[in-house]
């Protein structure tokens, strides 16, 4: 639908309503984050105040402890004292590899599922759904012994492969629906022209599949990025990714936590996502358009 003509005809009241709703939603969606960014420059008794939340605004304790209403202590503590940058490096490796491998396997598999009319293709899809229903934590606790036996526990490649596998059902489903929406004639006419199935895939399908792949990639990326169950159990402390690292800042009965380190770390961790979303925003939207429509 063309936007210009639509909005021209929209009555003023409706426009106001839409604007009001968008503002309301944006406040709802973004306020906690904005509040966190603001609070990450305070000390814990202010941001997590037991007295009054106004402390988080005025920085009462921050002033008393550091002499200024804003402090970079959380960031310093997380990045320098507790070496958060290591976790960032590991996360970068894990998320990038998971996304790339998931998408490579998923595109091939999804394409095959979309083009095969055999019964077993349907059952593979259903099996994938059932696989997705398994709570991750049960899966992971089952991996430990074999991984120790094979001496592959604790290193990044193992976690990457596990995350790829755990992520495959979703990737397959999403890409399968996406390939369904690409007209069959496209690759079939290429095959009539003498291409093999794989050549047809390479020459005809790959050039048009990017929007769908980017969208699926976003979800793969988020899964690997936010994963806690797998990475906390399968990686040694040196290879830890961001989320387990952040959780180790939170404290236990043995140690008072540095919750502000966690808050600062979370804020820092969101910056690359912001860039990513802005960068791929157009593809995300157009990708889903072409993709999941056929459900």
């Amino acid at each position, binding site marked *: 639908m*063309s936007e210009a003509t639509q909005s021209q005809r929209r009555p003023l009241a*409706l426009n106001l309503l*839409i604007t009001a*709703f*968008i503002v309301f*939603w944006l406040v709802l*969606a973004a306020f*906690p*984050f904005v*509040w966190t960014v603001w609070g990450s420059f305070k000390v814990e008794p202010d941001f*997590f105040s037991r007295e009054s*939340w106004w402390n988080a605004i005025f920085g009462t304790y921050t002033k008393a402890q550091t002499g200024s209403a804003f402090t970079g202590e959380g960031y310093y503590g997380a990045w320098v004292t507790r070496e958060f940058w290591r976790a960032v490096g590991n996360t970068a490796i894990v998320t990038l590899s998971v996304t790339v491998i998931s998408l490579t*396997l998923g595109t091939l*598999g999804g394409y095959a599922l979309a*083009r095969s*009319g*055999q019964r077993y293709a*349907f059952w*593979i899809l*259903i099996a*994938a*759904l*059932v*696989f997705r*229903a*398994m*709570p991750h*934590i*049960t*899966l992971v*606790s*089952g*991996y430990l012994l074999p991984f120790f036996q094979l001496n592959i526990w604790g290193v990044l490649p193992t976690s990457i*492969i*596990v995350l*790829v*596998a755990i992520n*495959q059902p*979703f990737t397959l*489903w999403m890409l399968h629906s996406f390939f369904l929406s690409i007209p069959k004639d496209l690759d079939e006419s290429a095959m009539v022209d003498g291409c093999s*199935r*794989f050549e047809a895939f390479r020459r005809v399908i790959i050039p048009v599949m990017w929007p769908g792949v980017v969208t699926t990639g976003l979800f793969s990326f988020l899964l690997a990025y*936010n994963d806690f169950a797998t990475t906390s159990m399968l990686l040694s402390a040196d290879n830890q990714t961001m989320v387990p690292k*952040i959780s180790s800042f*939170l404290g236990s009965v043995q140690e008072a936590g540095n919750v502000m380190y*966690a*808050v600062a770390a*979370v804020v820092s*961790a969101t910056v690359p996502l912001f860039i990513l*979303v802005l960068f791929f*925003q157009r593809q*995300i*939207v*157009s*990708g*889903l*358009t072409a*993709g999941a*429509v056929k*459900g």
Partner: protein
Amino acid sequence: MPHKTFFAFILPSLIAMVLFIALPIVSVVVQSLYVEHPRILVEVENCQPFGGCTKEVRVDSAAMQDLERSQPMGQFNGLGTYLNRGHLAVDEIGAILADNTGPGDVLSRIYNLPFYKALAFTLVFCFVVTPLAMALGFVIALAVNAVPKVIKGPVIFFSLLPMIITPLVGSLILYWMIQSNGIIGASLQHLFNDPTLSLRASPLLTWLSLLFYGVWSNAPFSFVVFYAGLQTVPGDTLESAMIDGASRWERIRYVIIPHLMPLATFVALVQLMDNFRVFEPIVGFSAEANATSLSWMVFNDLSGDAQLFGSAGATSVLTIIGVIILLTPVLIRTWRDFNHKVV
């Protein structure tokens, strides 16, 4: 597509899933049918830094060794674990039904069983959050579709925030905001003029805040998918509807919604499944006292000082069965679509 080509394409993905998901599921199912061998206990003297020496019981691991070597899986128990009090609690339910003082008593006593308590919250969460989050996502998508192009990028990013902030810390911060000294909690107290109002103390309010968090964090997923779907609504259909004099609401009702229906199925499928496995909000909101879920039970079995693999396995299998039951309508629909597909 010939079988050979099909498998050539799908093999890598299939191998990954079989190795890392299917085999572990099989082993979990098998494990859940077994319990540990009866342990041979001995009393030994035990000396610690505090309190000197005391007599304490130990497992006689030497005596257990032979038994464990010959039957490493443990003792076959059939469906015993599934039916015990920690899971389906068949005997306990039978006892409750046989001897009770009325339906209220039956309900409250069944709710006292851990599995049913967890199941109750899991189902409520699933069936409240999924439709509400989808509806909210749809409305946001319609609204975002109407904003000027220039601000669309940032609006989309901010709308996605609830989905992309690490749930671990996202729920911690939100939880902080709603506690009685937090900005939202204190404002609510002010608004309702009730200084004792605490969202964390009462079971009802805890459930409501968890449901609210669920809708908040799930809406962006529906939003992205629906917003994308809106871009493909055929312009000519809309225009002909307008020429026919259809109102704005009628256009949404009779053109846009049917067009988005397949998408909605996809979203419902993914969201129902994810919500059935709700876990992070419960821990993030410290809501264990008032709300537990099936995934939380699995976590509790595995994270204690003594890990109960059989019990966790049984709960996991029950979770899978629950998901399959929930998704049956969607699966039947997929089956029909699949059969319609021209081979």
